[in-house]
């Protein structure tokens, strides 16, 4: 069975490695400050005990007051998984550092989140709209997108 690592004990490891980079850690997720995301992602991928080499998916949820970007990472070797979350409170230009450099699987999915939810991913090799045509007004998956 894929063991969903609990956010608590991972948080302890990361806290002593990168102090002050975590906002909060729930039962099975890890709330990370958005600017320290790439560092933590690099750490999670390269340490042997964790070895999260499989980028499962990334998606974003619009909670009106903030956007929550949800990453789910798996490890093919240890068969365990973790959910990373970051929040961006700025509604007109929400930006999150891109993980396309760490995992190549993130490339297309981040473009899709940018296209449908409007979240900018800094450092993404070619951040263009994935599905809709370039002149499309607005980002449809936002809650306040008028029909």
């Amino acid at each position: 069975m894929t063991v969903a690592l609990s956010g608590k004990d991972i948080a302890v490891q990361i806290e002593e490695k990168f102090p002050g980079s975590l906002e909060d850690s729930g039962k099975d997720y890890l709330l990370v400050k958005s600017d320290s995301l790439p560092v933590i992602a690099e750490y999670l991928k390269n340490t042997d005990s964790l070895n999260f080499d499989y980028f499962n998916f990334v998606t974003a949820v619009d909670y009106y007051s903030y956007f929550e970007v949800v990453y789910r990472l798996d490890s093919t070797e240890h068969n365990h998984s973790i959910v990373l979350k970051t929040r961006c409170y700025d509604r007109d230009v929400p930006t999150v550092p891109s993980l396309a450099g760490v995992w190549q699987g993130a490339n297309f999915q981040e473009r899709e989140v940018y296209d449908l939810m409007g979240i900018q991913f800094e450092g993404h090799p070619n951040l263009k709209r994935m599905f809709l045509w370039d002149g499309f007004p607005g980002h449809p998956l936002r809650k306040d997108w008028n029909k």
Partner: protein
Amino acid sequence: MTTSEMMTLKTEPFVLNFGPVHPSTHGVYRMRATLDGEVVIDLEPVVGYLHRGIEKLAEERTYGGFIPLTDRLDYISPMSNNLAYCLAVEKLTGIKIPERGEYLRVIMAELQRLANHCVAVGSFLNDAGAYFTPFMYTFREREKIVDLFDMVCGQRLTYNYMRIGGVSQDIPEEFLPALIKVIERLTIFIEEYETLLKENEILLARSKGVGILTREMAIDCGISGPVARASGVNRDLRKADSYSIYDRFEFDVPTCETGDCYDRYRVRIEEMRQSLRILSQAVKDIPGGPVKAEVPHLIRPPVGEAYGHLEAPKGELGFYVVSDNSIAPYRCHIRPTSLINLSALRDMVKGWKVADLIIIFGSIDITMGEVDR
């Protein structure tokens, strides 16, 4: 200018659109390939022609009303889409499914895997140029599976058969004898199909060592399903994160090493054999009893989120459902296996010829409904 420079002809690459309408793009999909003569230098997939915004529609449908829409995702294997969505919502609400419902779900999911691999293998040969013959044979066998689905849920493509808490209706009594016949016939068919193509020199020449996907690249791109297992990634969700009652059946997960087109074809053929093994075990010990738990039509799951995923024929298909205790999901994200499997296409194809581009793309086996959602 040395003579060798003079000798090399001045060629400049040209961009060729394997456009939305092309005989072998398996749906509305466009590849902007830059070619130098026949050799592919660069490839950029252009998607979005079939984008219907299913994730936005999900926010306006009740939990039960969204199930017919999941049929339209990967329309080659709708049963698996229904099952993945139901698993996610059941994880959210914690509903227990009766035994017979679980067995029926496994039978339908494995039949759907057979039907999908029939299409995948048939159209892979079609792209290689065998003029529709393997395609006709596999579709004749797929017809027998679709007949069974038609008997159970009344439709041949959009089944809408799974419900939250089990399965919508019980199977008629003539279903099991017909299923046993289908299993026998398919085992004979796979042997016959093997003699047609297993050692066919031209197929070996066209697909052995072509479009190699290394193990590291497969894991880095998050590839799942037969494409990843052909490259040596031993990850099958039925074993790795076994959902419903797959731990009761013994079957093995076929993997190959080199990860070229021929290995992907072999992995799919082996997976068909394993599915037949599971089906024969499931048919032997299917219990009686109800098929659906007592679930009201309008369910209101508690506030929270859940990610339910399963081993769909094309790879890991997951539904990430966020609920705010209302009758409609607050957010429903679908993990697109086909879109993620496409992210490695550019590196697999660079340096190969136009004929290989088509066969490598065919061996990945994607459907546009799942890519564009």
